[in-house]
């Protein structure tokens, strides 16, 4: 522990310490001799690029993965954590990056899964108690919802809140949050931050993984940076600048201003949406996108941005309105849109973007099959060549193009989803939260990529919940509210305040 930080005098021994943790997956050394200490009542930020091993380390911590090597010390005493039960006994609770919710159970049952209050008859559950307890926990985190709602009815943000409630309810001493805000809107994020402050005051230690630099400085008491499965350094937020952190994470300098060559003169009209209405809850949508520009689509979670994207792409049926692409009216299934040159990078890469069991190569060429093999005859080597080129171009961290895509880290998976549309040579790219769960290095690469695409004559429509990104990157933006376009912001008007003002209800 040579590189351990000077520790606060009040708590000389860490609450929990991991020493020399190693974990290998086929072809990947996910963790290599990582040591990590958590002190009582601190918020410990864990940073690193996609695939750096953050989630893996936390899964080892909570007993979900068994480490190949390494030791655990709880309050200075050596302990074994070989199952989630062990970890729970030590007071460790985790909010996972992937949800651990059961869709057809209600919120209360999900929160207390495995810890149900016993009913009078053995084996049964005290229904009124579980509901009351759940209500109590939900109130603690400021989430106002009926706990007997089944989880399948909830949106992503709401599910994330339930996930948080579930972890809180365990009264943990150590709470791990793996990118908890990735799916939250600002309102919920604020609630979460307030909650974190309260927990901290109660002496709960929090390990917090995030790709959002602002959060790192707003919340963190201490920062540990991982890179390629190794612990690079541990620092205090006061002692570093964002740039330094980024350099630690990626091992080189990264420009975080997302420089763009804004189009002074937008190109010809590529996409024109007129009065689009769909049963998914959007109505009278009017949007224009020209070649060479990046158009933002912002608004609160649930304002219908994804629905607009899906309707344009033909993924949802529309009831009225017109979509004119490249001068011609268009209506039909996604295959038609794709053939015409529209690309959709969907909101959920795992369920909508990737065939997780197939290889990186298979996923990269799937949209470009017609283009790459005009004869209709498929050739594995040709596919391999194309995907190797894309892997290099996008810097996808994978042992080979043959690797199963489900084994890549989230950020690299996202790159694969984008890569498949590059291969297809699309003209209009619709990005739905393209940087969700993506590290800073990858983020700037992706923005650079989008910039290059539009510079070469393509166009982009970008949905993002991170208003900073919209403001930095977009030429102009539409703001949505309750399924309608609430306003349009030109390059000069594009500020976070304006977005919020237009997007808020009854502004």
């Amino acid at each position: 522990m040579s590189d351990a930080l000077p520790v606060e005098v009040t708590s000389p021994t860490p609450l929990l310490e991991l020493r020399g943790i190693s974990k290998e997956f086929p072809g990947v050394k996910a963790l290599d001799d990582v040591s990590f200490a958590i002190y009582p009542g601190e918020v410990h930020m864990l940073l690193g690029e996609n695939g750096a091993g953050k989630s893996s380390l936390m899964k080892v911590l909570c007993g979900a993965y068994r480490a190949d090597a390494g030791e655990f010390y709880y309050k200075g005493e050596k302990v074994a954590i070989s199952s989630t039960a062990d970890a729970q006994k030590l007071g460790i609770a985790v909010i996972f990056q992937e949800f651990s919710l059961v869709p057809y159970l209600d919120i209360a049952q999900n929160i207390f899964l495995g810890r149900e209050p016993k009913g009078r008859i053995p084996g049964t559950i005290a229904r009124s108690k579980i509901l009351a307890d759940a209500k109590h926990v939900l109130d603690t985190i400021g989430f106002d919802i009926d706990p007997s709602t089944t989880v399948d009815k909830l949106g992503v943000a709401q599910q994330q809140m339930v996930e948080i409630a579930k972890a809180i309810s365990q009264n943990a001493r150590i709470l791990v949050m793996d990118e908890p805000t990735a799916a939250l809107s600002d309102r919920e994020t604020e609630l979460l931050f307030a909650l974190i402050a309260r927990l901290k005051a109660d002496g709960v230690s929090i390990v917090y993984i995030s790709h959002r630099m602002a959060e790192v400085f707003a919340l963190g008491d201490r920062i540990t940076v991982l890179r390629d499965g190794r612990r690079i350094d541990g620092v205090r937020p006061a002692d570093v600048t964002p740039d330094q952190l980024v350099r630690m994470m990626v091992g080189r300098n990264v420009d975080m201003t997302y420089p763009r060559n804004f189009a002074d003169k937008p190109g010809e009209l590529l996409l024109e949406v007129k009065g689009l209405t769909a049963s998914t809850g959007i109505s009278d949508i009017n949007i224009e996108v020209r070649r060479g520009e990046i158009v933002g689509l912002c608004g609160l979670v649930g304002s219908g941005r994804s629905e607009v994207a899906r309707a344009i792409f033909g993924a949802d049926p529309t009831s009225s309105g017109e979509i004119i692409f490249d001068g011609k009216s268009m209506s039909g299934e996604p295959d038609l849109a794709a053939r015409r040159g529209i690309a959709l990078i969907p909101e959920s890469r795992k369920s909508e973007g990737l065939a997780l069991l197939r290889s990186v190569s298979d996923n990269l060429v799937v949209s470009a099959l017609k283009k790459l093999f005009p004869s209709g005859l498929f050739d594995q080597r040709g596919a391999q060549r194309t995907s190797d080129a894309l892997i290099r171009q996008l810097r996808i961290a994978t042992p080979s193009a043959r690797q199963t895509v489900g084994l890549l880290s989230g950020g690299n998976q996202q790159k694969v989803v984008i890569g498949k549309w590059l291969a297809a040579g699309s003209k209009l790219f619709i990005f739905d939260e393209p940087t969700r769960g993506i590290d800073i290095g990858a983020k700037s690469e992706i923005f650079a990529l989008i910039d290059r695409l539009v510079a070469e004559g393509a166009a982009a429509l970008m949905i993002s919940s991170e208003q900073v990104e919209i403001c930095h990157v977009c030429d102009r933006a539409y703001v949505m509210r309750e399924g309608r376009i609430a306003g349009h912001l030109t390059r000069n008007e594009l500020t976070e305040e304006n977005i919020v003002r237009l997007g808020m209800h009854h502004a």
Partner: protein
Amino acid sequence: MTDISKDAMMPPRSFLSQDAIQMFYRLLAALLICAVLAVLSDSFLSLGNILNVLRQASLTFFIASGLTLVVLTAGLDLSVGANVALSACIAGTVIHKTGSPALGILTGLACGGIVGLLNGVMVTALRIPSFIATYGMLWVLNGLTYWYMAGETLHGFPAGFRQIGSGYLFGLPIPVYLLLVFLGIGTLFAQRTIWGQEIYAIGANPVAARLSGIPVARRLLLVYAVSGTMAGLASIIFLSRLNSAEADIGESLTLPAIAAVLIGGTSLFGGVGTVFGTFIGALILTLVLNGMNLLSVSANWQPLVTGIIVILAVWLDMKTRRRAQ
């Protein structure tokens, strides 16, 4: 967590593709069965017997090859056997009525194909899970066939037509040539065409496939129609081989075909498997039944042995195949 750590223990991908290794194991198993049978029965290794095995395997293979495509899309077609029965009966009637085998063959294939297409429509347009849709179809087809045949048997077909099922060419039964042809076509289609790739993609994740611009509904229609048409082909082979057709021929064909697909390493979850594997699967099944006949094992043991083989084959497959969680 044991699953994940077990996964993690598996060897990394080697240069040989996973599928090739799987196929190698499977061939090895088939050869092993052959070796055991050759030791136990002197008649096993005779040319005649080997041709027998191939010919018997071919009928299962025709049905199972189309089914493989369906299973690759994570679907299932339980109606194949009933489809064979109906197609055989209709094709047989056409041959009887018109005297033209060619017309009969076309009708049989068309009938099979149309039934398959209807399955496809139920799965795509009506969005009924394939397992249930084809189970419903199975009974509808049975009802139709029973009504149409009214307990009669069709029999006695022109000699030329009968050659397809029972004739020889250069010492090899004609179904064996057909088997090789369709094995080739099936493999090429699945592995070497973009349609094949799209089918794998659909099986692996239908939602992602649709959002990747694959016309999922059309491909599924194609796959079910192909499966139906292959059942139609099997009905023609059946008709010409047995020189007759009756309403109940289908029932005993479905489960062996599914078993062949599974033994052949195609995953019911879709996206994994090959037509060649199905061929080996059909071969292994046939070999075992053939062996039991040669050794005069009571037929009471057949379901038991088949059951064990199916489980064993899939288990070994999983042991040797590395999967993402």
